[in-house]
């Protein structure tokens, strides 16, 4: 699965100009070397045989079983279905099968608050460990 997660004030611009562009590059095999190198790292701990490695990369590049997930911050916090449809317009051009394209919308104020709480928590851990 290819993820793009964006915290932004302009979700539609971000989705149209950056996320879709990036997904298209993955879909058109332009980033297959990144795909293979990322998977090489992910499967390292499974101790695959040479044949299993080869079959994995063969399927990964030739069958290209990619799914996409885009997550963007949105305002207002109550973001209804028509707004979502408008936000993710153009997504079907990446892959026609709806099961292979996922979209999430997170209320921006909640995410900002989460960042703040998370940052405080990390900072507290650092201070407690006396790093």
């Amino acid at each position, binding site marked *: 699965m290819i993820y793009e997660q964006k915290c932004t004030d302009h979700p539609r611009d971000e989705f149209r100009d950056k996320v879709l562009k990036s997904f298209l590059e993955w879909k058109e*095999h*332009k980033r297959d*070397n990144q795909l293979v190198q990322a998977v090489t790292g992910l499967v390292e701990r499974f101790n*695959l045989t040479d044949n299993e490695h080869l079959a994995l990369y*063969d399927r*990964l590049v030739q069958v290209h079983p990619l799914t996409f997930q885009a997550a963007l911050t949105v305002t207002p916090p109550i973001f209804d279905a028509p707004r979502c449809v408008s936000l993710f317009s153009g997504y079907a051009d990446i892959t026609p099968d709806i099961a292979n394209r996922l979209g999430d919308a997170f209320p921006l104020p909640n995410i900002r608050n989460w960042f703040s709480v998370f940052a405080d928590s990390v900072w507290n851990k650092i201070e407690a460990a006396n790093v």
Partner: protein
Amino acid sequence: MFDAATAELIRGAPALSGVDPLVLPQELTRVYSDLVVLRLKGTSAADDPDHLPALQRLKRIADIYEGAVDAGAERNARRAAAFVAATAHQILGQIQVPGYESGQALLEPDAIHPAIAAPLLFLIAEQNADAREAARPLGGVRIENRLRSAVIESVFDLATERYGGNFGACGEVTSRSCECRRPVDHICS
């Protein structure tokens, strides 16, 4: 395009779906000769719809074999896969198909550019002369991130055998890399 020993090496590459290693030498030769003809005609192969499928296929073969090499296939199959991947990268690099354009990052945390991969793959294939040739575009390349720049420079030195037994060139890279290091006191203060 390939002498008998090299063609034999290529035929030792592991089979892929839709790819018969026994005819890979001919396939690579055909793609290369087509590109030469197109170049003589002044046509860009990357823009030629008749040649695009062959180029895309070649890129997929290169990416798969590069992954197999990275995962550590057995020695002979690894050498063969490395040679095919490097040769394909070199051919595709000459025509700047997508993924090979100059101006792309050479070294990133998530991937290395084919221009860096090709000389390393030739070294794995134990084809030092080809590694030297493939490394030529890296000569004099410097990027803003000094540590990554040092890695690129080291790949160039390694592939072109610039270390020359006394590690002089590698020593220069190391010296420059050391400039990036900061004293521990500075970090902890």
